[in-house]
């Protein structure tokens, strides 16, 4: 099942003050697959996600999404291209309710600007109603509907993680980047999350997954890219990767 390539990174380098966080990394993501990026701590996984989503530009190299170079775009432009993400350290908007969080996610799907909003024109009213409905239905999907008017900061941790995914999904992305979605969750929550990720895949969304939980990674990924010291050391299907001596060495140490 070799589907079309949706995202391609070519020779990505990223230096922070002379230190290479990523060194000549190239990889591909195929449409409607789950591609996991794994590697020991400090391997450069989060940096890679930050580069794809435009938080910082690469020092050199190119990122191409659906045939368009996105490596110099600002994050919000990239969101409009159809890439959204979650964060390793939760970045839920604590000053807002659960529903509002998801409604922010619908930003790219709406267009009212300052003047219209100030005056609350009928167009805005219609849009608001639509946004609220879509937000509510997303919350239903994520089993958060009963808490939609809670302040997001009062949600338990696991639900905040789900909320962040719901928010990212609200932007109707073609590509969703999940940065450690199960870190800090217990086994039951992790399994729920795994199901959720597979459900999202079924919706036709391509997923990049950065995760340490190997049960999850091996269980749901289609492809895996392994990074160590900012370099790609392995890639392929979970079985291939699991058997790769370089990977075993990176994780368990010298034999």
């Amino acid at each position, binding site marked *: 099942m070799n589907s079309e390539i949706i995202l391609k990174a070519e020779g990505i380098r990223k230096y922070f003050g002379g230190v290479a966080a990523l060194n000549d990394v190239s990889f591909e993501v195929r449409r409607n697959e789950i591609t996991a990026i794994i590697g020991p701590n400090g391997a450069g996984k*989060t940096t890679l996600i*930050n580069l794809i989503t435009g*938080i910082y530009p690469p020092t050199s190299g190119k990122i191409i999404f659906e045939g368009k170079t996105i490596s110099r775009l600002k994050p919000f432009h990239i969101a409009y291209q159809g890439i959204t993400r979650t*964060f*390793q*350290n939760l*970045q839920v908007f604590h000053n807002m309710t659960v529903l509002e969080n998801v409604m922010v996610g619908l930003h790219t799907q709406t267009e009212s600007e300052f003047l219209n909003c100030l005056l609350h024109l009928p167009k805005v009213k219609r849009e608001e109603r639509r946004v609220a409905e879509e937000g509510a239905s997303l919350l239903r999907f994520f089993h958060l509907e009963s808490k939609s008017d809670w302040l997001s900061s009062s949600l338990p941790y696991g639900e905040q993680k789900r909320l962040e995914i719901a928010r990212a999904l609200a932007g109707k992305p073609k590509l969703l980047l999940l940065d450690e979605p199960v870190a800090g969750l217990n086994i039951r929550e992790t399994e729920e999350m795994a199901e959720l990720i597979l459900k999202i895949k079924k919706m036709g969304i391509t997923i990049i997954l950065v995760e340490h939980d190997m049960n999850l990674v091996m269980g749901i990924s289609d492809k895996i890219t392994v990074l160590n010291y900012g370099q790609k050391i392995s890639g392929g299907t979970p079985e291939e990767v699991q058997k790769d001596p370089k990977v075993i060495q990176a994780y368990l140490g010298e034999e």
Partner: protein
Amino acid sequence: MGIYEQILQFVLTGLTIGAIYALVALGFNIIHNATGIVNFVQCEFVTLGGMMMYTYYSLLGIPLILSFFLSMATIILLGALIERGPIRAARSKAIIVLVFITIGLSSTIRGTALLAWGPDNVPLPSFSGENVIRILGAAILPQHLWIFGITVGVVIFLQYFFHRTLIGKAMRATAVNRKAASLMGISVNRMVLLSFAMSGGIGAVGGMIIAPITTSSYDTGIMLALKGFSAAILGGYGNNAGAVAGGLILGVLESLGAGLISSKFKNAFAFLILLLVLFFKPTGLLGYGESERV
């Protein structure tokens, strides 16, 4: 007076006033490094330095040198009290809340000073007479030398304190990394307390050495503190070398602006340059970038 003598005069006076800005900026920095806030009570540290000196020296007749150190001690105590009281008691450690707590305190202290000393400016004698000294055609007062000398002294002391003493190093360590500092057995609370006390002392010195020239009143500190804060930001907030550079640059710029361009817009001129610096170097001249982790 030829144009070169004039320029020399502008630079010399600019440097002395700049030295005061630098002192105040250092006070801001020390507390910023320990807590991350802008401490508005710095205004009152400067004010009270002058007023306490006046009280001890002119009202109580205590010798000048003794008065100097007594005033310093008093303000150091005040600084410590502020930290032990409202700052530590604050329910929220959010920076904006702490900053506005210091604004409230500043107002309280200013009101108390007005009540205690009245609204009039009070004079302080120069430390060593008022005989003009001539340097290459430019004229300065002995007090200007005192200002410059004491500022240099304070800077050297701080350099020594922060780089040669264990406590000083511990304070720097705390500013860099609170968690690691506490893992070394350094009490973060005590370091914050110390930083309030120290910046009180430094502010007081600033107030005391400028008072013989400007006289002192219950609200003299405000403008000096405003300029001092500007100097701190100009140099890069938290960077002590930056504070000194920022203070001197601001002082000289003002003086040159007033002397050579227009005395009407000299303050505007100084702040305009400050804005331009910030627009092109958002962390001040010698500041480090604040990295944001995601």
